[in-house]
């Protein structure tokens, strides 16, 4: 049985840890609100671009005789011999299973095939994980300082687009986290390149293009890709903060429970020492009486 003093010290230390986790929980909550806001602001634009892309592609001539889609990023490949996988993790830890989930998904997909895959890492956690296991990291985007930095996004998007165009890889996949709500988010694998247009329902529209389909696509595709990359990053950021908030809430709750148990122990120890003292006094008095 630990002494009264030892228990008191432990309670004090658990309390100060709890204070820290509680503050971290609150900080994450406010960061989450901000990230969520940014995501929901960016979504209508990205969705509309996606739908527009789907409608344009549906309206292009198709079939075996048709000319190829007038944009290299839209040309479907029959197989992907060399690919690039972008792993979206966080720079910092203490966010529960957030990073593990994404890394697990990436691992399953890579299946250890180092000759086939080029790895690109967003966030220090993913880079550290794969570097430790001997993967060479083709590109990294770290130190985002908890924000989506336009210049970094541009550089990453340039890396992916130029690698795809030069044939260094024939496809780009994202292992990221999709965010639906504070309690609903999880890892997902999405294709970035070549672009898979969303299926368009109903009859295809017969569009007039000004100046022409090729020129419109030349301008639309980069915009589409950058919007897609941006929303993926916003989703990852919001999920990270949500995961951290939940992890910290659990830690705070655990600390409360621990303080309760320790307080009980402390009271028992105190009572035991009082009982012992009384017994000694009574015993002493009995002895004097003789």
């Amino acid at each position, binding site marked *: 049985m630990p002494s009264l003093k030892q228990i008191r010290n432990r309670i004090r230390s658990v309390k100060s840890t709890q204070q820290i986790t509680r503050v971290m929980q609150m900080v994450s909550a406010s960061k989450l609100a901000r990230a969520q806001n940014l995501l929901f602001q*960016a979504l209508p634009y990205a969705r509309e671009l996606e739908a527009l892309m789907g409608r344009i592609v549906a309206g292009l001539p198709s079939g075996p005789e048709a000319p190829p889609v007038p944009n290299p990023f839209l040309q479907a490949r029959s197989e992907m011999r060399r690919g690039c996988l972008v792993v979206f993790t966080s720079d910092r830890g203490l966010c529960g299973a957030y990073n593990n989930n994404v890394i697990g998904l990436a691992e399953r997909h890579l299946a250890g095939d180092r000759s086939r895959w080029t790895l690109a890492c967003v966030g220090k956690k993913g880079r550290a994980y794969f570097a430790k296991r001997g993967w060479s990291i083709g590109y990294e985007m770290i130190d985002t300082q908890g924000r989506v930095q336009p210049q970094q996004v541009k550089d990453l998007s340039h890396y992916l687009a130029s690698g795809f165009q030069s044939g260094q890889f024939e496809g780009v996949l994202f292992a990221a986290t999709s965010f639906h709500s504070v309690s609903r988010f999880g890892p997902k694998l999405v294709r970035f390149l070549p672009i898979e247009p969303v299926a368009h329902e109903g009859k295809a529209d017969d*569009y007039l293009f000004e100046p022409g389909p090729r*020129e419109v696509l030349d301008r639309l595709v980069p915009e589409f890709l950058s919007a897609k990359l941006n929303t993926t990053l916003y989703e990852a950021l919001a999920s990270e903060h949500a995961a951290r908030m939940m992890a910290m809430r659990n830690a705070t709750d655990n600390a409360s429970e621990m303080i309760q148990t320790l307080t009980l122990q402390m009271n028992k120890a105190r009572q035991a020492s009082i009982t012992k003292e009384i017994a000694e006094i009574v015993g002493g008095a009995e002895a004097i009486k003789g």
Partner: protein
Amino acid sequence: MPAPYRLRIITREKVAYDGQVDSVMAPGSRGSLGIWAHHAALITALVPGRLWFREPGGNESSFRLQKGFLEVRQNVVTILTDELGKT
């Protein structure tokens, strides 16, 4: 009296406008583009210039555009642009 149709303007940050208008003028890549109701399906890349539209009540608005896209489809005009500037 020109028939009203729906105009939507969506920027990177928000849905900036969604309502009925009776005419739109936009800086298309082949010169300024005037759109009335029941325009044929069209997609164009926009160039820097002025976007102008009039609501059925006669209310007129105009914005500065840097770049973007304009789609006309089934009597709905959608403008996607990265930024809208006040004129």
